[in-house]
């Protein structure tokens, strides 16, 4: 079934949303990348939270940039050594520059308390692994518009 994703959800031609996908598993990074590109997104992957923050302009030693990092969604694994997905979520939400970027947490474990604390901390959605095409289609409505990342979300509520 062909989907004309270029004009889907208000993204014009050539305005593919940019997703930052964070996961320490090489297999999962490969999978999420393909899932997202098959849904007409641009993807950048990072293997840990530290690297993700660097890509967002918030790495240690980096000056806080006033430039919009142009990321429309962050999708991160929960369980990662060092900085967890939850830690990354907190850092993003604490940053005046990044706080409006929607964050989705993915986890292989269905732990209600974990889900609750992520949603309370500002995550848009909590998805269970393994990720499928139907999950990625859900993500599109959480992505901010490409040129106006502070203009709010494309769907109300979760």
């Amino acid at each position, binding site marked *: 079934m062909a989907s004309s994703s270029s004009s889907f959800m208000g993204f014009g031609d050539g305005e593919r949303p940019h997703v930052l996908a964070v996961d320490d*598993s090489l*297999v999962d990074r*490969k999978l999420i990348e*393909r899932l997202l590109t098959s849904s007409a997104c641009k993807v950048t992957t990072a293997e840990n939270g530290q690297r993700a923050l660097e890509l967002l302009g918030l790495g240690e030693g980096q000056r806080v940039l006033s430039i919009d990092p142009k990321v429309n969604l962050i999708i991160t694994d929960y*369980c990662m*050594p060092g900085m967890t997905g939850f830690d990354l979520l907190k850092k993003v939400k604490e940053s005046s520059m990044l706080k409006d970027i929607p964050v989705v947490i993915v986890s292989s474990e269905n732990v209600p308390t974990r889900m609750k604390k992520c949603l309370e901390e500002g995550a848009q959605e909590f998805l269970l*692994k393994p*990720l499928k095409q139907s999950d990625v289609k859900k993500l599109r409505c959480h992505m901010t518009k490409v040129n106006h990342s502070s203009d709010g979300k494309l769907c109300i509520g979760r």
Partner: protein
Amino acid sequence: MEVVQLQRSFLEYTSSLFQEGFLDAQFSQLQQLQDESNPQFVMEVVTLFFEDTERLLNDLTTALDQSNVDFKKVDAHVHQLKGSSSSIGAQRVTNVCIPFRNTCEEQNIQGCLRCLQLVKQEYFLVKNKLEALFRLEQQIVAAGGVIPMVE
């Protein structure tokens, strides 16, 4: 061999892998993500899985061989293996990881060693099956055919 025969073999073999529980619905997801612009996607992900798993199995063997086993470390490796096998649909490997995590929690060294043996068995089984599947695919393509989509 004729393309049609090869394609039939491919479909029958794939079906049997699902029926015998070696692969689950997640593997079908991978197949659906393969297309003309990503013609090798399944093989690429599965190859990453093979490399990742062999590294993890070595790490597990080493970790369980220590005089003072660090069960948290062992559990972390098993958690990774459970995740990656689940992401590609290698169901039987994932299923062995579950009791494996329990033996880690119980700090049961004999239990862990037994689980490691089982997980190695299941891994090499599914590896052989998938490699056979990829060979069939290559034969189809070499004979000028298209790899059929499994229903």
